[in-house]
């Protein structure tokens, strides 16, 4: 069903956000960046994608962009992703659009902004944390929700999509029937074997790239974890104060303080836990579904040639990556993760 929808859909789906550049934090293959209609040049880590610029991915390419404020944009193979700047209601906004292919968005839940998504004659309002937009050129769109919930409006009809659900919107039409969303989960289990084989063309270089990716997750995890610790410390102080208010000032003052101060602080702390967990679980998935499969393939490939220097170099680096994982990620995993 999913494949059918992807094939059928042709769409132009701009996502309106506050004006911001997007930085390349990860890529695979040889994606290109096109500036002001010029010929494409290969992009690199750290490149900034600015309004007026496009990222073009080929069949084996993948790009991940990061925006200040915690927004992540993942550009799938065979996609054209463009940033443009428009004026809406007197304010300059950055428009993210994928004229073909698919893009997965993860917005920082803390930002709490209402996003606007448009496609040809279709205008939709979206609020959510993580969703994917499939796009083609006939103006129709498919919105699929990975986590959280999004609200999609079109032609005056609004539908709520929960995690695991998707809806198709034809140009100028109300949203269609809600269908089960079989889109990508927060994991690497759907990595194709040939993609791993491609890494193994030069296994040490391939593993170094995985290591960089893993370290990105770990660094983001550590940053988000520190943010949570701070919000948790604040929350604990607030709860101490709440207990004091209850004893000194009674139930009414306690209830008011709880509603106005403690609950918002709790929501912030919970959100910050989910933020660091996102990176922890991403690193875990990379280790489980990519590193492990690479290792098995390498062992099989060098079964009768275990002393080969390339294999020994690979093993040394593999061990280094695992050690770092055990030190930085494993302590934050819980029983249900495993």
């Amino acid at each position, binding site marked *: 069903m999913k494949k059918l929808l992807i094939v059928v859909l042709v769409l132009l789906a701009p996502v309106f956000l506050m004006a911001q550049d997007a930085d390349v934090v990860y890529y695979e293959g040889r994606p290109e960046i096109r500036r002001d209609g010029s010929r494409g040049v290969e992009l690199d880590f750290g490149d900034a994608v600015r309004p007026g610029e496009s990222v073009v991915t080929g069949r084996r390419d993948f790009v991940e962009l990061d925006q200040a404020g915690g927004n992540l944009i993942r550009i799938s193979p065979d996609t054209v992703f463009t940033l443009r700047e428009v004026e809406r209601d007197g304010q300059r906004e950055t428009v993210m659009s994928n004229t073909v292919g698919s893009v997965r968005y993860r917005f920082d*839940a803390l930002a709490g902004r209402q996003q606007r998504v448009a496609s040809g004659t279709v205008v939709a309002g979206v609020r959510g944390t993580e969703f994917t937009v499939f796009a083609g050129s006939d103006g129709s769109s498919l919105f699929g929700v990975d986590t959280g*919930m999004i609200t999609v409006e079109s032609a005056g009809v609004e539908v709520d999509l929960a*995690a695991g659900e998707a809806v198709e919107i034809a140009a100028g039409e109300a949203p269609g029937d809600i269908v089960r969303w079989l889109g990508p989960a927060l994991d690497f289990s759907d990595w194709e074997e040939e993609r791993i084989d491609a890494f193994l063309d030069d296994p040490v270089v391939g593993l170094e790239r995985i290591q960089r990716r893993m370290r990105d997750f770990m660094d983001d995890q550590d940053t988000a974890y520190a943010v949570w610790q701070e919000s948790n410390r604040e929350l604990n102080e607030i709860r101490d104060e709440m207990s004091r208010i209850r004893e000194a000032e009674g139930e009414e003052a306690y209830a008011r303080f709880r509603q106005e101060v403690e609950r918002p602080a709790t929501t912030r702390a919970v959100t910050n836990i989910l933020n660091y967990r996102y990176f922890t679980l991403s690193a875990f998935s990379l280790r489980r579904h990519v590193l492990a499969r690479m290792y098995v393939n390498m062992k099989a490939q060098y079964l009768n040639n275990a002393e080969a220097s390339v294999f020994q170099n690979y093993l040394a680096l593999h061990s280094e990556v695992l050690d770092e994982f055990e030190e930085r990620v494993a302590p934050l995993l819980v029983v249900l993760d495993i």
Partner: protein
Amino acid sequence: MKMKQLVWVLTIIMAAIVITMAGCDMSGSEDSISRSERVDLFASQLANEDFDRLNGNVHPSDRDGGQNAGTVWATELGCTVNGTWTCVDVSVNKSGSPSSIVFSEEGTDYTISFTYRQQGDDYYFKTVSIGGTQFAPPTP
């Protein structure tokens, strides 16, 4: 094979099938989890402060891995978190079961309500709301 032997073989096979079938629960419900049992399990985990297992009660297709961490639930339910969590005075009232229960921590009540989704014979939570606001799976 003679006719008499064939009859014996068929008889033995039939007997084996009957014995095997008799050992099966044809309703398939022996190990299933009803809505009440799901709430009982959730409530007992709460009462034991086993927060790290709570998210396992959410339907796999609705479950957000981020909420596997018990710290998420403990924080929301008023327990102090310092490395792990500390709940001072926990009690669980299941009088609203299976649609809701009340979790109390240090004199503060949290009404937890559920909607359900079925998988095979098992019921899981589709949503878990705390204090009227959906908590699992998380919303923006």
